């Protein structure tokens, strides 16, 4: 289970995600978006999933893959007018992701705020002890 901590930032949404492994990190990335956008995040797990979307991405590095993944989630939220809060990962390597994301229509959720995009600014993904840690800045 990833741990998400919001870090000090004057204008944007800056988070640190501490995860057990790379898959857990991507789940944490998804959760960090949900935590910012949805007013009552705890209620989401009681929703019946009504929307699922494939999410297949490739990139040159794990950092690029992670940012592309976060921006893909944000795009799909707009495209499908949905909130995605769960993910199943079929395959994840250092430069490839094959997953399915799950969610519900935005109209059924109390949306609080919007994220414009995930950025490369201050981005870091590293292995610390037996954990994978990432810091990522979202433009809001």
């Amino acid at each position, binding site marked *: 289970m990833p741990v998400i901590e919001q870090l000090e930032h004057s204008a944007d949404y800056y988070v640190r995600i501490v995860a057990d492994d790379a898959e857990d990190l991507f789940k944490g990335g998804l959760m960090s978006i949900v935590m910012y956008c949805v007013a009552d995040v705890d209620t989401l797990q009681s929703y019946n999933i009504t929307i699922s979307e494939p999410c297949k991405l490739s990139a040159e590095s794990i950092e690029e893959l992670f940012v592309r993944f976060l*921006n893909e989630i*944000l*795009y799909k939220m*707009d*495209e499908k007018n949905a909130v995605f809060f769960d993910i199943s990962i079929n395959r994840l390597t250092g430069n490839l992701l094959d997953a399915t994301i799950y969610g519900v229509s935005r109209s059924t959720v109390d949306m609080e705020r919007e994220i*414009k*995009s995930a950025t490369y600014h201050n981005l870091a993904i590293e292995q610390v002890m037996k954990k994978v840690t990432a810091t990522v800045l979202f*433009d809001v």
Partner: protein
Amino acid sequence: MVKYTAVLFPTDFSEFSNVALVHAAYICRSCNARLIVLHVVEEVLLPDPIEYMGVYESINEIQKHIEEEAKKNLAILKKDSRLAGIEVSTDISNGKPFLEIVKYSRENKIDLIVMGTHGSSGLNHVLFGSTAEKVVRKAPCPVLTVKHPDHSFSMP
């Protein structure tokens, strides 16, 4: 080496938006790329559809009328002398402009989007129109935004 084969030029037919046309044409000519001119018809949102039904026959008819006008404008644009010698196609989609532009780019393997920084609203006090800003953030390809020469940014 960068090679552009399909360039997208989204337009709302405004003076602000069409200022990017010459840049798109120049790139297409230089790279022998085809140009796709896209117009997005925004959904007609009325505060009280039932009340407005009395004024207009139906929302669908308004939408149809807007689409017909858009087709005429696209046909005129396609014959624009500035596009001479370029393979040009046109398309219309319906929805939110930024989303449709990004979606179109993803689905049609667009290499480059060339668009105006502002659309028909042309708000002088904002550096970047909201559609252009969102397209830049979410597009799968590079985006060239072009400012109207007379457009200056003044601090609010």
